[in-house]
């Protein structure tokens, strides 16, 4: 038996009970919030996207559409906006199954090549290379940027795919991307992954992105 403490503040029993309650309540709150968050970050369906229902994570078929990043006055920051149909590697009619398979292959390749060890995805990862969160929308890959001309391609997706298949052919900075043996199929799938990631509602991260000169829908 413990000695009776002179004050509750020096009572081990009091602190042990407090620790138990605090831990239990915090864990329950976290579980409750996680259930809500998981529902919100589950991928939406193609039908809901076509019906313009709001969602945080668009379905894989978002690759059939133009994605822009626009200022939302109500929320006070930029949000992804899904526009009209837009060709992705010459097609804008990927079925949900085809798009899912492409995105899955892209994500698997991003993991298999350990992209995250140099780049950041949604801001998490290594800091040796640019953040990929909104890479799809970056002015560097637009018609006014250097990469399309350098790779001799006419579209964003082709420029990205060609670059990552043979990065050493296109040295842009002293710090170069190594050859990772990315095949053409893998490169297309990675670009689909990047386009999908750019459409994620990241609560305005990174700040000011769409206001930059040459950015998609600069306003």
């Amino acid at each position, binding site marked *: 038996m413990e000695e009776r403490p002179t004050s509750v503040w*020096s009572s*081990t029993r009091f*602190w*042990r009970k407090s*620790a138990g309650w605090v*831990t239990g309540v*915090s*864990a329950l*709150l*976290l579980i409750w*919030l*996680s259930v809500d*968050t*998981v529902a*919100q*970050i589950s991928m939406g369906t193609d039908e809901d996207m076509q019906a313009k229902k709001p969602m*945080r*994570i668009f379905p*894989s078929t978002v690759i059939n559409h133009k994605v822009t990043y626009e200022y939302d006055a109500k929320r006070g920051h930029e949000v992804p906006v899904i526009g009209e149909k837009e060709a992705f590697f010459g097609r804008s009619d990927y079925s949900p199954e085809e798009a899912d398979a492409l995105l899955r292959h*892209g*994500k*698997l390749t*991003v*993991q*298999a*090549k*350990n*992209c*995250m*060890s*140099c780049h950041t995805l*949604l*801001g*998490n*990862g*290594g*800091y*040796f290379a*640019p*953040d990929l*969160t909104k890479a799809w929308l970056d*002015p*560097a890959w637009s018609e006014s940027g250097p990469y399309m001309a350098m790779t001799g391609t006419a579209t964003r997706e082709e420029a990205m795919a060609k670059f990552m298949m043979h990065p*050493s052919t296109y040295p842009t*900075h002293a*710090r170069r991307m*190594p050859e990772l*043996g990315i*095949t053409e199929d*893998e490169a297309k799938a990675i670009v689909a992954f990047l386009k*999908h990631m750019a459409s994620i509602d990241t*609560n*305005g*991260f*990174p*700040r*000011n*992105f769409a206001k*930059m000169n040459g*950015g998609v829908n600069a306003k």
Partner: protein
Amino acid sequence: MLSKHSEVKWESQKLAINYFRVAIILFLANLLFGLLAAIQYMYPNFLFEIIDFSVNRTLHINALVVWLLYAMIGSVYWLLPEETGIETVGIGIGKLLFYVLTGAIAVVVLVILIVQVGAGNETTIWFINEGREYLEAPRWADIGIVVVVLGFLANVFLTAFKGTRTGILTVLMFDLLALAGLYLAGMFFTKNIAMDQFWWWWVVHLWVEATWEVYVAAVVGWGLIKTIGANRKIVEMWIWIELAMLFGSGILGLGHHYFWIGTPEYWWEIGALFSALEPVPLVGMFVHVIYDWGKQAGKKHGVSNKPAFAWFVVNTFGNFLGAGVWGFMHTLPQINIYTHGTQWTPAHGHLAFYGAYAAILIGMMYIAVQGKYGLKEMRFTAAGKWGITLLTLGVLGMTMALTIAGYQQSMIERAEFGATWQGYFAAQNSRWMLQAMGWRLAMGVVTMLGFVLLFKDLLTIGPRLKAEEAAGVTANSGAASTIAEPAQA
């Protein structure tokens, strides 16, 4: 630590020493691959397409996580028989699991170093590289780790139930159970990157900012009782306060990783409110114990292991600065929107991992050396003093350099250029970034020198002090010591 000399009577403690041996080798790997990566920031052609930055960084951070886990398991096997008063139950299985785990880790390291990457399919995820920061170990190894940890947990629980179950052990038991369970949240594949990162943080955050911190509170409490005869009642009271504070803020503090990964806005407020000042009670425990020791306990108990105690001091304040202050500096969403994904994170990461985890576990290694050679007391050697000084200065120096790098990256890349690729390279090529990276490398070399001295000390201090004791030299003759009586184990 290498010699066969052993005055350890518990098999559990012999196993602990094996865990510490592997831990120190992995600590070397941790620093070595970190240095290579730091060189690549300065000289990008260095080892290009041989051991790329991505490979070095993967090995740098994974060696860190694994050496800390090894030393954590080792520390528990060390203190378990002393707390319970009995030999660890299932020690035979414990030894077998040690060799299984070490073999598996060796294979994982070699595959990541030599094979590096694979084709974009499930086979790569299962056998080469899972490609998720900190959790790069392929899936087969994940399953192996879970099996080994379950075996370890079974040993701890069975021993605690059979022998004396102290407050420290009760905290450790439940903490280790949570720690092991959380690892399961990282073992699945999804094509949805937001969902991936959501659960990834369950493992990474709830390990390093919750369960690992509670582990440290329990072990440092035990260490203070061991080294300076701290009053167990004071220690156990503070451990519960620390647990309440850590889990109270650490569990929902997970929200500060959910600002920008696709998760809802309500995490802004939750993440900001439950911030990173969890290590405050640890300082409270330390100050309280030292006050009590100065007034009361110190009259009958000197510092029985000075190097270990010094490392506990580094732990207490390093944890507060690295995890607490450096964490809080960029945890509010209003600041984090500019700092998330910049050099701010490694600035915080380096000091926090060193202060919160490396320091306490090195302290435990010194306690093991003392036990192994049956030394009544352990004083500092020159190598030990220089080791702790250079390691601490090196890590503080890297932290300062990376903080400057982080500041200027936030300002140039984020504030000026809106986080575009052009902005990224403008920041990376700025003179201030290059200067900061130069200092980081220099301080990395200082850290490595500190490690070499620490390594030498851990290998030689035992036999040396044992010989001195045998020759009748009083261990405290050379140092400014106030030791009155030998340690009461």
